[in-house]
């Protein structure tokens, strides 16, 4: 369970996120949606202990993220940020291998190698595993980052816009894969999505944020209504019944 209690982040006198109160039950996909600047990334990075908070507390599976040693947390929760950039020249496989660092401290065992193989093939990177990251396209690189997080094999997974740069086929494949992981392995996956239709299709819960606060939390049926979405995104959104459930139309 992820428990967010009265969390506040103050960037400056004008910009503040929170207070946010949120309880996420274990298991399933929780989609964080909301307009640009709503505070989705801020909340997610605080959950992943990459950003300190100015008030409140967050606990994941009973561990206070501000106090638990990083090394211990790394086996419970993994996080992928919206932007990733580094100068180190690594191959896809080496990068994914670092997902095993919390367990192996760099000395990969055959079991680690197997998990790495699996993460690589899940994300359709098998043919690219020997390539350097700076020789990949944006979407290929994004898949490599997600593979690294999956190789970390944690109960809780936090992903900030993992569908960035992905084409239709790979977006669907990634969401299906995450859905499987959430339901067959009981993982809890919190994921920031901009495509509300994807969110409705694959998530078990939607959490809508606006102006630094959670304004709606519920099942896709509860959130996917014209009123809620129009209010959250401040743009007219119609919700219609499509062949596979509801569809938001906003263009």
């Amino acid at each position, binding site marked *: 369970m992820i428990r967010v209690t009265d969390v506040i982040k103050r960037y400056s006198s004008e910009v503040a996120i929170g207070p946010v109160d949120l309880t996420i039950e274990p298991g399933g996909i929780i989609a964080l949606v909301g307009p640009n600047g709503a505070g989705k990334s801020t909340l997610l990075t605080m959950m992943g202990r990459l950003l300190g908070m100015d008030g409140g507390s967050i606990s994941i599976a009973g561990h206070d993220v501000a106090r638990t040693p*990083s090394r211990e947390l790394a086996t419970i929760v993994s996080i992928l940020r919206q932007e990733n950039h580094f100068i180190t020249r690594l191959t896809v496989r080496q990068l994914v291998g670092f997902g095993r660092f919390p367990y192996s401290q760099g000395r990969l065992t055959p079991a680690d190698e197997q998990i790495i193989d699996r993460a690589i093939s899940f994300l359709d990177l098998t043919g690219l*595993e020997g*390539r350097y990251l700076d020789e990949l396209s944006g979407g290929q690189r994004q898949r490599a980052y997600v593979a690294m997080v999956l190789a970390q094999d944690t109960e809780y997974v936090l992903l900030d816009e993992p569908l960035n740069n992905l084409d239709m086929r790979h977006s669907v494949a990634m969401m299906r894969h995450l859905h499987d992981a959430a339901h067959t392995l009981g993982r809890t996956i919190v994921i920031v999505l901009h495509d509300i239709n994807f969110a409705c299709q694959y998530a078990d819960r939607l959490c809508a944020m606006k102006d630094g606060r959670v304004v709606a939390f519920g099942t896709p049926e509860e959130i996917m209504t014209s009123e809620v979405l129009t209010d959250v995104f401040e743009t007219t959104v119609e919700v219609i019944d499509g062949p596979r459930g509801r569809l938001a139309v906003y263009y």
Partner: protein
Amino acid sequence: MTVPSPAAGAVRAPGRGRAPGRLVDPKLLLGILVVGALLVASLFTGVYDIWGADDGAAMFAITRVPRTIALVLAGAAMAMSGLVMQLLTQNRFVEPTTTGTTEWAGLGLLLVMVVAPEASLTARMIGAVVASFVGTVIFFAFLRRVTLRSSLIVPIVGIMLGAVVGSISTFIALRTNSLQIIGVWFAGSFTDIIRGQYEVLWITGLVGVAVFIAADRFTVAGLGEEIATNVGLNYPRMVLIGTGLIAVATGVVTVVVGNLPFLGLIVPNIVSLIRGDDLRSNLPWVCLLGIGIVTVCDLVGRTLIMPFEVPVSLILGILGAVVFIALLLHRRRRG
């Protein structure tokens, strides 16, 4: 662009990410042989006739052997310091001489010698190491505040910082009549290395061992604070350890040899271009190339205007600048 080839995966054989177990890489062996040959050449290069003169063997042991050992230790230490610094800052263009660390070491050395002219080698070394540490911490603190961490601005600011510290040293030296100390430090050279004075350089060997042990952790740190924290690395502690190792290596080398510009910059970059950045398997190459380059520069310096010597720092500076510019152009081309 190239088409993703399924063969790439097949050739690498699944489960063999970094080819463990192969202890002696034939290429590495070749590298060791080449550098070994250079070191032998270094042992037998010089004005003094070690074969003919009566005290030839003694001179050989007093000057040539220490000089060659110093080349090995200093070359490897500076190359590794550059590598660790680049990983900790996530900037390809930093190394002890482009961040002011060597200038700080020089200042520390000078202060000790001004305050206590009779200070022992150990005391001078401690002064240099402490000053390098302080200087590196200041530089890292500055770096946390800039957003464009991978940009060229970073080394430019570092060089400026170094210039300021260097001029403070010059000022102090002028006031205390100790300009010659600055001169010796500025023109890093292996000329004066003799038995009894170079032995502290072995400390850098310990630094090397520490870097080898922490290699994977440094590679993870090189992925940036966030990814490193995500996989459970205690990032601040790693930065502290890295800074300490850099300070010790730079401080010791500065006291014994002097300034060795650009070595830590060009060596890791060349290795990374050719082999990527898997630190643990790269370290032997970084050490080897560092040793190779200083040795070649020292040999050139010794033979160019025989019987006199050109300081190795001068040759390194010229070579380093050329390689530096080539690297810049190369990286720009690759985007």
